């Protein structure tokens, strides 16, 4: 248990996007969150990574309460994420996009920039080395000097992974990492996710593609209308009555 949420709730006005969700993320495993559209999955990620403050509840990372930390502080602690829609800098090269990912581990300031100090040069080198390393890991070395605008959707997803990895995280949160990608490429990305877990990273991902989740995840949580309706191994989830109802019958069946 590297990260825990306790009765996490988020209200947007009268709309309860996440309701009373207590969940534990297991270290070194692939943890998955599934659920119908609008179930509150992305919001759950936004709460953990500090993009939105929760209305109620707490978040603990390695025993430390991080509920009220700002997003940048949370990233520093080792929680990285990707977004449902990639928001990369299209006009820059893949490499230049990824270099800034290691910025949070550097200290150079304006003074260093103006006087081009030793520290700046050293840290720039570190950032570039880190970029090369994560581009290699994500299989992007061959496109590293292409403009992001010119690479494929699947490659963009990989760049987003690379950026997250450049922050030297312990957990990565991936929000629909294979959305908009064809089945063959989905498999490739699944392999990459597996590789991340094998390297010792804790992975937490949101996905709609059931087949992929069932083969990839060690643990699954199902959200429906902001509430956790099930939790367990892929086998358990597959046979869970509530889950089947939520997916087949939608809201009306459970009401």
């Amino acid at each position: 248990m590297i990260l825990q949420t306790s009765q996490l709730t988020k209200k947007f006005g009268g709309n309860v996007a996440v309701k009373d969700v207590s969940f534990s993320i297991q270290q070194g495993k692939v943890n998955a969150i599934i659920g119908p559209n609008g179930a509150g999955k992305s919001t759950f990620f936004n709460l953990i990574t500090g993009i939105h403050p929760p209305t109620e509840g707490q978040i603990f990372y390695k025993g430390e309460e991080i509920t009220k930390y700002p997003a940048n502080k949370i990233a520093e602690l080792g929680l990285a994420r990707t977004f449902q829609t990639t928001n990369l800098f299209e006009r820059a090269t893949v490499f230049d996009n990824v270099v800034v990912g290691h910025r949070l581990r550097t200290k150079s300031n304006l003074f260093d920039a103006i006087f081009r100090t030793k520290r700046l040069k050293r840290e720039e080198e570190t950032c570039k080395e880190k970029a090369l390393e994560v581009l290699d890991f994500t299989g992007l070395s061959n496109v590293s000097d292409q403009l992001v605008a010119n690479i494929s959707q699947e490659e963009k997803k990989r760049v987003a992974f690379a950026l997250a990895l450049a922050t030297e995280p312990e957990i990565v949160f991936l929000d629909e990492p294979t959305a908009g990608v064809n089945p063959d490429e989905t498999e490739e990305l699944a392999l990459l996710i597996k590789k991340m877990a094998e390297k010792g990273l804790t992975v937490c991902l949101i996905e709609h593609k059931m087949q992929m989740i069932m083969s990839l995840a060690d643990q699954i949580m199902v959200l429906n209308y902001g509430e956790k309706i099930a939790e367990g191994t892929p086998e358990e989830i597959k046979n869970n009555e509530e889950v089947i109802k939520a997916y087949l019958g939608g809201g009306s069946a459970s009401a």
Partner: protein
Amino acid sequence: MMKLLNKRNIILILILLAVVFPFINQNQYYLHILTLAFIWTIAVYGLNLLAGFTGYLSLAHGGFFAIGAYGLGLLTVKGGLGFWLSFLLAPLITMAIGLVIGLFALRTKEHFFAIYTLCVGYIIYLVIDKWESLTEGVRGLIGIPAPEPIGPITFTTPIAQYYLTLVIFLLVVLIIYRIVHSLTGRTFIAIRNSEELALSLGISTKKNKLLSFVLSTFFAGLAGAMYAGFIRFIGPEIAYTTITFDLLTYMIVGGIGTLAGPIVGTFLILILSQNLQFLQDYRMLIFGPLLTLLIIFSPRGIVGFILLHYSNWKTKKRMTIPKDQVKEG
């Protein structure tokens, strides 16, 4: 490698041209215009750092320019301080005011930020215009001294003023270049690209936005102080919002978010409007449509247009190289 050499040579030739210009040109008026162009370019660089590289379009920039100018004017004329001390203090004062305004303005984003800063710019104008006991209001500040001599070097002739301006200008370009190409610059660009992404990469967007804002006011204040020291008479009209929109036009025509943009835009428009002066205000009938076309066809201005075509040309070349090698092999 070729590209690097080319770029460096072009820069060296331009600097050389700027250095020998007073010798090949006998027209005092051109020297005056060029000196002013350098000063305006410095202000545009400040705007570009914030709007172009960090993604926050400030419309208070002309106001900060005026604060720098009045800072120098008031410290020398009314405060009785020496020129150089005032020249040092004026941009710092502008920065301090920028810091306070930035703290509030940066709570907003996008068009709200633009509107907020537009109001701030107008308030700065009102303060300068109405606070007559301090600023002399519409009468303006007269008798701003010329820079005092530094050792044997005096700054009384237009040529000396030109070189002084050129030196400061080159320093500013160097500093901007270094900022943009540093981790700090990469941080600004990350914020411009997506604040949410930057935050999740552990970047303190609050701190870095404020830094960029304060820096931009520093360059505005510096340009303002240089303007006051060069023209030696200032009135509230230098705080008009039209100044902000002039600076904005220079930046957009040259290329927002590009390093060469401020120079290209400012010089091009200043030289063009000198040559089209016989058209008087009808000049705008030419500039307006041209600006519109430019924004439609090249949102990153002239420099952006060149960069795009240069990189396209390079990729084409790269794609043809392997074929050539195959033929040879």
